[in-house]
């Protein structure tokens, strides 16, 4: 039997070549020669795509779990999980309804019954959505109680309020897509309220429903809003939100 290469040999062969070095920039913890020194710790952050989100150093107190409770980060993590599971669901879902073509509903049933991991992914998407509304709300509460919206962070608080609204919109537009009794009646209740907008009430409702009553057009419209428009806007505001955290001097405090 030929002698198997040792672990350090494997490590050397994978790391010590042009391709590996072209992928992992100097300072990367995956690159050969990373040492746990101040210099390499700084480079690990600076030479990484994460540098778009994190500075090289952060305030020590911000690391304490009881300062942020990780709530903003977890909201973002859930947003990412929802994007991934959502893309998976999109492979198997057609936003079509109406007598004889109840594809949306049939696809949902199919996802649960025959698609591998379909039920699990749908569950993660739905519970994740509820959870995200919850974590965003708690994140807002923690920001408030820390007075973290005070100058220079006022505008980021406003961006946050917009994100809260967008999170609710994401969740609500998705609620219609299974096209079951729960979906259309919850949306009926919600859009009826919008019908009472002063002056333009009927028009607002018409635009939202894509017609006078909830129907196949509503489904298509809300599908596009749910998978494209609202996530797109949300990503833009998330970018501004994260950018402002850094420009406003990193995490607030200590109290």
């Amino acid at each position: 039997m030929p002698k198997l290469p040792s672990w350090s040999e494997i490590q050397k062969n994978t790391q010590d070549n042009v391709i590996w070095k072209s992928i992992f920039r100097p300072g990367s913890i995956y690159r050969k020669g990373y040492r746990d020194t101040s210099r390499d710790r700084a480079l690990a952050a600076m030479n990484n795509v994460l540098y778009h989100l994190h500075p090289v150093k952060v305030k020590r107190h911000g690391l304490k779990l009881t300062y942020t409770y990780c709530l903003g980060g977890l909201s973002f993590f859930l947003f990412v999980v929802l994007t991934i599971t959502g893309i998976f669901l999109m492979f198997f879902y057609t936003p079509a309804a109406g007598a004889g073509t109840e594809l949306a509903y049939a696809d949902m049933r199919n996802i649960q019954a025959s698609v591998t991991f379909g039920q699990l992914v749908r569950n993660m998407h739905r519970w994740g959505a509820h959870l995200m509304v919850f974590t965003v709300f708690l994140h807002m509460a923690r920001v408030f109680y820390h007075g973290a919206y005070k100058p220079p962070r006022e505008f980021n608080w406003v961006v946050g309020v917009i994100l809260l609204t967008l999170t609710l919109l994401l969740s609500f537009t998705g609620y219609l897509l299974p096209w079951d009794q729960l979906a259309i009646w919850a949306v009926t209740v919600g859009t009826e309220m919008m019908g009472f907008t002063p002056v333009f009430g009927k028009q607002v409702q018409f635009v939202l429903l894509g017609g006078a009553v909830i129907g196949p057009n509503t489904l298509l419209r809300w599908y596009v809003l749910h998978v494209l428009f609202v996530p797109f806007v949300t990503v833009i505001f998330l970018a501004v939100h994260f950018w402002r955290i850094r420009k406003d001097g990193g995490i607030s405090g200590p109290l």
Partner: protein
Amino acid sequence: MAEVQIDQATYDALTSQGVPDRIARAKAKAATVRKEKQEQGVEIGPKSADQATKALAEFRENFGGSGGGTATATAVADAPSGRLTPEERAARVRASLGQTNGSPSIGVPADSKHTHRLLALVPPSGIQQVSDKQQDKVYTWPHLLLVEFVALLAMGAVLLVVSYFIDATFRELANPNLTPNPSKAPWYFLGLQELLRYFHPMVAGVTIPGVGLIALGATAYMDKNPSAKPENRKFANMSMTFFMCLWTVFVFAGSFFRGPGFNWVWPWVDGLFFEL
């Protein structure tokens, strides 16, 4: 100033050792300067301790007693050797400005007690802009990223376990002609639906949430209190807690205490009318 020539011997020696050109050049230039100084008999390197003491004593002899006035003279006498007292330092400045030998410094009258002249008043921030205070910071890698990673794993695990055991709601096919009783909005809107019982739909569905969101955003501008300490912002915290509790009560009422016809029920008597 003329360009310093490089010391060829040093340069050759260094390059032959594989030292990069840039560094070899710099070292060779330094060698030239050192050589020149040695030729001139200048000592290089830090002064030895006794040399420093000697220089200080020389200085005192020259300037201490005569130029500085009485205050300086006594101060010199009291000063522990090896260090300058503030008076001595002032005398030294005066000396360097040329006031001991009678030639006044530019703009300073010869008999003036001042050693400098006022050019302008500049706020401290104008001299050195300190934009960041020194803070207690740690490296993002590994400290922050590890915390984030653990949080992410924990949340991922919770979501996975919940999703493994509890299936998402899925009812009969949508039927516009068959209104379920009760018809409820998703839980986060049930507070609003609850308000519908008390207000005109325009107030409950549009005015209150609209004003609420705008007020929420405006909070950051209305709160003029600069302190973030809880003990200094009792009013703000109390108001927020009040509104959040109020909202929670409405959401709970709409979620668990409303049944058929959206009429009041007791969940432990009539059961739950709530779906996620």
